[in-house]
């Protein structure tokens, strides 16, 4: 397994290969699968992602708690009228991210990427960028391997769990993964992918995990929508040649240290941040019928 961004870039440079190619070869060895088997496994994930990214637009979906209800449809309908501030592409990405979260919270099927709470970011960015670039399914699968490398490096050196590192570790990692994938899908270099991932992490540093009523719904759904936007913005910066002044590996460590120093009230316990607001406490009482 590749355990640092530095190592990953060295391999890419030495063998003159894309990140996905290096990762695919590494995983063929690590998992003892053929290239076809490896792709087939990832294709299953891609198909579940594609479905989750549109299901809440096509069907009426309500979360178990009732907290999430039709936001993917709302943003999609407005976007179809064509008068959005952020434009069609960003709105499509946000629709997809919200859809995944709505599917997740209604006990529907999703792919953890890297976690269930952040399951909307990577599909939203991947599908939206692929749609824009007319990318093949094969290239989308490759981009998922690129994303997995970024996530794997973060998980190895830091954490991707909200309980351990806050939302910066969960949605932040998903955004960094998505940014790297978006760059590769747009024919950027491996350096650009990791610059985009590093820029993404900078922009979420310190983000706390504070789910209302302890449910993976609010603010999670909106953080997924914003996480997708963050990834796309960082990818555009990197693709235009803007460098991350701090290398990816150092940003991963910075994120980890920030996560460590966060009090436990701000790490998934629903005792701080958004979860501790009077409105959130009211909502929690309503759902659970007690404190």
């Amino acid at each position: 397994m590749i355990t640092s961004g530095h190592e990953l870039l060295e391999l890419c440079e030495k063998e003159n290969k894309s990140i996905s190619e290096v990762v695919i070869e590494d995983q063929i060895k690590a998992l003892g699968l053929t290239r076809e088997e490896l792709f087939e496994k990832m294709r299953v994930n891609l198909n579940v992602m594609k479905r989750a990214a549109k299901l809440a637009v096509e069907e009426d979906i309500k979360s178990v708690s009732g907290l999430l209800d039709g936001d993917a449809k709302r943003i999609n309908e407005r976007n179809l009228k064509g008068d959005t501030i952020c434009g069609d592409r960003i709105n499509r990405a946000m629709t997809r991210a919200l859809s995944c979260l709505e599917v997740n919270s209604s006990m529907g099927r999703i792919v953890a990427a890297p976690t269930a709470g952040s399951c909307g970011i990577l599909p939203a960015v991947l599908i939206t960028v692929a749609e824009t670039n007319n990318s093949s399914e094969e290239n989308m699968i490759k981009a998922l391997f690129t994303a997995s490398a970024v996530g794997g490096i973060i998980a190895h050196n830091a954490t991707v769990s909200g309980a351990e590192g806050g939302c910066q570790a969960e949605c932040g990692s998903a955004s960094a993964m998505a940014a790297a994938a978006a760059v590769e899908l747009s024919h950027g270099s491996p350096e650009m992918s990791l610059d985009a991932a590093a820029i993404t992490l900078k922009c979420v540093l310190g983000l706390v995990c504070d789910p209302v009523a302890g449910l993976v719904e609010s603010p999670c759904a909106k953080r997924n929508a914003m996480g997708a936007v963050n990834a796309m913005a960082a990818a555009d910066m990197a693709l235009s040649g803007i460098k991350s002044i701090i290398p990816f590996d150092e940003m991963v460590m910075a994120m980890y240290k920030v996560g460590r120093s966060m009090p436990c009230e701000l790490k998934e316990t629903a005792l701080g941040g958004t979860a501790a607001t009077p409105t959130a406490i009211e909502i929690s009482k309503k759902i659970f019928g007690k404190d």
Partner: protein
Amino acid sequence: MNKNYSAFDIIGPVMIGPSSSHTAGAVRLGKAAAAIAGSDVEKVTFFLHGSFAKTYKGHGTDKALLAGVLGMETYDENIKYSFRIADEANLKYEFVETDLGDVHPNTVKFLFKKKNGDELSVTGSSIGGGSILITEVEGEEVEFTGDFPTIITSHYDRPGIITQVTSILSGMGVNIAFMKVFRTTRGDKASMVVETDSPVPKEALDLISKIDNIIKVKIINPV
């Protein structure tokens, strides 16, 4: 941190939301408990402890536990309809919030009532990421994960029983992955939990059940 992750640890698993410990873990607990309970169950009462008791409504933990008892897989999209499916199958169910003492926060105790009036309890915890630990069966302390084929015995604590069980298994080419022995406080009864690397043939089970001083033996397939 510092563990090695494959591409599919990061992107995956395919799962039913909202969270692996409340959905996949709960489904697996239900499946394991139902396998221990066997057939002809009339009613299941779920005693929910800790954070399971506090948050099951919002997470759908109740639906997932019942879905597991009904035998659904962790990725089945019908999990959310488990109440209706249980009603149709004439399976009664009840959820009770309780305090099971000093146990993992995500713990549930199942009480199965069989059609012949027998009652049987199983306790287990969802320990994160969809992993589970079964900790009690019929009042006896046990410990297994449901990841492997698992043999559970109830027997009188006499010398030589363990060796007999292990030699039957090795004679049939079944490799033991983990093994633990528990002694109960009451009487001289003990239980043994053997997790194996490969499926356990029925003949092995029959032989084990014939060993002197073995009271009962069960096999739980991986969930």
